[in-house]
């Protein structure tokens, strides 16, 4: 690519985002790899049927527990092998991307939204609101999350939507505490005082000045939380409270295949596990990078 085009592209990026993506341009390999990996996973989530060689739930008992194709008994029709019911693992991993991402991200967004909103209010206004919210958070933290999840699912019944709700209920505390702590320290900052002295409205101060200032911390925590959510989803699926078959999720695959792993069929759990690891790792790397880019203080 010739230099003028590259620079006009950089200008375009600057135009679109309002920021200089200088780190990206300088060729940060790790970020690039993470980005490509996540892009691949998102593509899998978007068009699984096109990419997967087999339907995810197509069983073939005679072909059960086939190892990956490069091993001795491997079959080229099943590149990553098959599970205990002869279902193609590659197809299931590809299909699993959709539900895992949807569940993970929607739980993340719901809990983040609720948690940050509650934490902001508690931290900025203090008083009885703060006391009540934080005691509630303490109470929830005192209850093991699996117990809480079982209790909630027992009441509202297991379904894919309810899994999202349970995960969101579990997650809000982290954001609320983070946002409250940040809001508490930010409200004492001179610039908040200065804006009050310049006649800014309360909601404006909270939304325009406190929220953006704590957002970078929230983004980083959220990218770490996603790992926890996906793990939690797999524990719930393991207990039969999570994603309900025939829908495929990585967590469910892990839970479902764990007994066969002991019999030597390591691939049944390894590939969904790798998919989870790859997703979380790339999101963490991107989250870290995003924080640097979004923070004007770190920009030269």
């Amino acid at each position, binding site marked *: 690519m010739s230099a003028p085009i590259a620079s006009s592209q950089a200008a375009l990026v600057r135009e679109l985002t309002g920021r200089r993506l200088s780190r990206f341009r300088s060729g940060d390999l790790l970020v690039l790899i993470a980005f490509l990996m996540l892009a691949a996973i998102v593509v899998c989530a978007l068009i699984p049927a096109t990419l997967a060689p087999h339907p995810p739930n197509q069983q073939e008992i005679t072909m059960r527990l086939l190892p990956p194709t490069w091993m001795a008994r491997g079959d080229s029709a099943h590149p990553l092998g098959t599970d205990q019911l002869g279902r193609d693992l590659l197809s299931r991993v590809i299909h699993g991307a959709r539900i895992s991402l949807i569940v993970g991200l929607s739980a993340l967004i719901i809990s983040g939204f609720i948690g940050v909103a509650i934490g902001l209010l508690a931290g900025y206004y203090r*008083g009885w609101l703060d006391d009540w919210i934080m005691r509630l958070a303490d109470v929830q933290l005192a209850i093991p999350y699996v117990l809480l999840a079982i209790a909630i699912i027992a009441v509202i019944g297991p379904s894919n939507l309810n899994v999202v709700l349970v995960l969101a209920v579990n997650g809000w505390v982290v954001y609320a505490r983070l946002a409250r702590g940040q809001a508490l320290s930010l409200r004492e900052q001179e*610039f908040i*005082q200065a804006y009050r002295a*310049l006649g800014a409205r309360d909601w*404006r101060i909270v939304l325009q000045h406190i929220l953006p*200032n704590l957002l970078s911390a929230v983004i980083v925590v959220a990218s770490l939380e996603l790992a926890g959510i996906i793990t939690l989803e797999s524990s719930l699926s393991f207990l039969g409270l999570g994603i309900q078959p025939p829908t495929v999720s990585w967590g469910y695959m892990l839970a479902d295949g764990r007994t066969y792993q002991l019999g030597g069929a390591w691939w049944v759990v390894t590939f969904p596990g790798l998919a989870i690891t790859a997703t979380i790792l790339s999101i963490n790397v991107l989250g870290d990078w995003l924080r640097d880019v979004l923070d*004007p203080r770190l920009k030269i």
Partner: protein
Amino acid sequence: MREPPLLEVEDLRVEFPTPKGSVRAADGVSFRVWPSEIVGLVGESGCGKSVTTLALMRLVRPPGRFSGRIVFKGRNLMALSEHEMRLLRGGEMAMIFQNPMTALDPVFTVGDQIAEVFQSHPQLRTGDVRTAAAAVLEQVRIPNPRAQLNAYPHQFSGGMAQRVMIGMGLAGRPSLLIADEPTTALDVSVQAQILDLLRAIREKLHTAVILITHDLAITAQLCDRIVVMYAGQVVEASPTRELFRAPRHPYTRGLLDSMPRLGHKRARLEQIPGQPPDLRALPVGCRFAPRCPRAEERCRTEEPVLVSSGDGRYVRCHFPLEAR
């Protein structure tokens, strides 16, 4: 004799409840500010100067409480609704703070922050926001204002950031600007520029300024009148020249004596012995008595009141100093 005062503060009290009893940060503060006058509010740390001005803008946060009479341009501020008060802040009354580097939001460009003043006060805006914002910067003598709108606060020096703050304060064409130690965080050469700017603003826009400081040298340069505070009270108020020539309160005298002066040969600077009283356990009688070289029995039993001695001077002392 003169036009009516722009601001009249009477018997202002600010209290903060603490587990060990209530702290009276300002206790019966009274003073006046006339239009286009620069008044210095002087005193050591913790004497209640900042809290007094925060109360003027009704910005004391709960659990802090305040009471008293504040009349600004003939309107009783204590009776205004929160909405009316908000319109006043940043409009007819503005405030700037000690540390300009922390008084600007680090995540927004300077231009965005100035634009926000216009959003809080839509009536101020005339025409394009960016043009208006650039005009604000130009007014406080920032070179190349249009280009600087896109800069972030951390790219500015302390002096530049303080100019931006002053500009934002002036955007509402206030008749009163409260400057809380505006130069304390800046180095000396920049201090002079900022003080110069404040003086120019008064000349051009006829804005009255309350300058909070603990630096008497600054007040000597800039202020028309000085109000000296001690332990939450006004102890002396006087035109600058008279105050420096002949302080009447022993505390003011102590402050002046602890200041180095050109042309005066003195081996050591005087100091005021002791420390300001604990605001939760104030002494009976005069609050300065425990540190006062002139204190007598009466000072320890009877609290003095602020009395006028004519000629625009006020002093809170049983035994005020006479002209030297």
